């Protein structure tokens, strides 16, 4: 009986907290599945890929150490250089369009110029939700030489362009598709950023005689810097990891005359067609290093490392 009365006191309760009621244990139980999956499929896989990049794999589990051979081979691999150029061109193209265009669109949609802005935002966002198979079919028709885009350009006297057949138009074709797919999500990011800028700043600027463009350039853009940084880094990630677009546009992944061949497609071919897992890992490691370097440069340029 005494136990019961004593058990009601706070001190005793803490002492007798069952093991599985302990907050740390509960947290661990809930986190464990994720940690296991993350550990096995991310950390272990990435670490293994780095190790494999110094090996020549002869079937699964049979490896021979080759030092830096895979990396040296990369330097003189013409296909890798082509893939890297295409990927860089694509990333640059998406950066040039997918940052300013959505930012301007977000600003316009936030302004009083547009009625039913949320309806427009939803419409712009729809491509993000569209199935890739559908996107592939639609863009094959849209970008065909006798397709819709050329018909539209024809109105301005532009001769038909062979978007899907000419090597030098392969990357622009993929950029067009990327712009259609990703503008919506970037508009959402920028809208969120713009919503955090206090209204009274715009009002003060208006009192000082600033027009819409000046307010956008001098208030919206500088104060959206953190979001611009975020979207820039995401766009670099997406661009450098280009993989699905060439496959849905050309089936083989290489595009006309390797004009659409990306680094990841080349990695995939090396791994699954040539079954050179070591070399494919080296491509992956180099790509990861490029992405990290680019991201650090962007962070540095944006002053991310400066102390406020």
């Amino acid at each position, binding site marked *: *009986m005494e*136990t*019961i009365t004593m058990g009601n006191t706070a001190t005793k309760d803490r002492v007798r907290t*069952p093991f*599985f*009621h302990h907050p740390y244990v*509960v947290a661990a*139980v*809930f986190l*464990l*599945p*994720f940690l*296991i*999956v993350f550990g096995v*499929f991310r950390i272990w896989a990435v670490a293994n890929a780095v190790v494999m990049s110094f090996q020549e794999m*002869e*079937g*699964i589990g049979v490896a021979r150490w080759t030092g830096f051979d895979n990396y040296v*081979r990369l330097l003189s*691999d*013409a*296909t890798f250089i082509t893939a890297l150029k295409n990927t860089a061109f694509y990333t640059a193209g998406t950066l040039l369009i997918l940052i300013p265009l959505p930012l301007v669109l977000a600003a316009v949609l936030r302004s009083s110029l547009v009625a039913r802005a949320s309806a427009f935002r939803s419409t712009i966002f729809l491509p993000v939700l569209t199935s890739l198979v559908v996107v592939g079919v639609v863009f094959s028709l849209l970008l*065909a*030489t*006798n397709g819709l885009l050329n018909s539209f350009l024809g109105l301005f006297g532009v001769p038909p362009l062979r978007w*899907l*057949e*000419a*090597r030098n138009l392969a990357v622009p074709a993929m950029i067009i598709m990327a712009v259609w797919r990703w503008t919506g999500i970037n508009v959402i990011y920028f809208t969120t950023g713009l919503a955090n800028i206090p209204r009274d700043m715009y009002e003060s600027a208006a009192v000082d005689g600033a027009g819409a463009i000046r307010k956008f350039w001098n208030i919206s853009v500088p104060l959206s810097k953190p979001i611009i940084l975020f979207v820039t880094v995401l766009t670099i990630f997406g661009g450098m990891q280009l993989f699905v677009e060439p*496959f849905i546009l*050309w089936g*083989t992944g*290489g595009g*006309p*005359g*390797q004009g659409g*061949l990306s680094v990841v497609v080349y990695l995939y*071919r090396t791994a*699954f*067609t*040539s*079954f*050179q897992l070591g070399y494919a890992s080296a491509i992956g490691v180099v790509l990861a290093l490029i992405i990290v370097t680019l991201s650090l440069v962007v962070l540095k340029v944006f002053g991310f490392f400066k102390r406020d």
Partner: protein
Amino acid sequence: MVVRRTLALADARRVFRLSVALTAGLLVAAGCGGDGEGGEAEPEQEVESQEGSGEKEDIELEFWTFVDNHADFLNAQAEQFNEENDQYNITLNATTIEFAEMHDKLLVALQSGTGAPDLVDIEIGRFATFTRGEIPLHPLDDVVDPYRDELVQERLAPYEVGGVPYGIDYHLGAYVMYYNKDIMDEAGVDVDAIETWDDYIEAGKQVVANTDAVMATVETAGPFSIRGPMLQNDGGIYDENNELIMDNSENVEAVEMVASMVHEHGIATVAPGGDHHQPAFFESFNNGESASLWMPQWYMTRFRDQMPDTEGKILVRPLPAFEPGGTVSTMGGGTGTAITNQIDESKLEAVKEFLGYAKLTYDAQVRLWTELGFDPFRNDVYEDPALSEADPWFNNETVMANLQPMFDRLAPEYTGPRYPEASTALIEIVAYEVLEEGADAQETLTRATEQVRSLD
């Protein structure tokens, strides 16, 4: 009593909370595991079937393919087999998986030693991926041998390693020339007078001069326009000794000949869309914008399915030869059905018997034509009534029976360890740069071959 009840309650609560926590954890784990992190789900596990007649042995086979028609064909063959065979009752669990995904899954399954099907379709362009080093497929000598004398031997070569067959195709895939009779008549060309490629080019000039059409279209995003003539001219990617010969002089000559049609004689253009399977090409050929094309026999189905206005107009003829009396065809495309080494040994005899029955018997080869529209690779079936019927779509000619005389002038195709990579290089480097951009055939073939050699 109070104490006991309170403790019991506390215990029950503790057990309940623990179960909830564990269940939630497991659910989360299941959720995480199900998002594709670990690759695709394993194919359904085989369940031993107890169905079937009492005396016959039930054999359940897992079969992967990337073509629905192949699955339908083999399923129908399994039914037929079960009716006729008194030893085995085959149940074929056919799964159709997208082309690249199926070959990737198969590669991983075979390399890791688990998860592969018993029977699988491997496309000719990917076949060599599976025959490098230790071959994870069963040799099919004893399947092929009983039928060997009747078979067009050249069709076995692409799936052989050291003379041992590891795959059996669905068709011969003989290259032919398809002419649009209306355009040829308008141009005043008698297609039966075309014997060599020089004759073909001269006829092409006549077509360009007298009609609105070009003589031919060529693929820059596909292999067929250059690989056919390369093989026909004793070239190709590999020779019979497994040597990579993509840059030899015969290949250079063949590619230069095709390029001359585009850049020198102006009788051919790049196929709209880049290859002969694009909607833009189907539309243009259907509209009579080009007068002919060289593709394998299985392309016949494309006219019926994709180019309705060509009905009655298409003439099927052998390829022009490089020299009078030279080879007038070769083979293009293909899919070898193989038995993987992960099959249960107890099923091996049954599956071999089934594979021979389904692919190589007289009736099976007739059905390759009647069910799939493919050219059989057994010589004796070409006299069968089913293959001797006049075809209204093709100018009321007995197209299939007409093919057979070509078979003794058929250039073989050999594959080798880097055939998949070489095929890709042939399309992306050679076909594109030479036919689209007018690059030098010798230089591009040499460069492409060097790239392939540098892989080893």
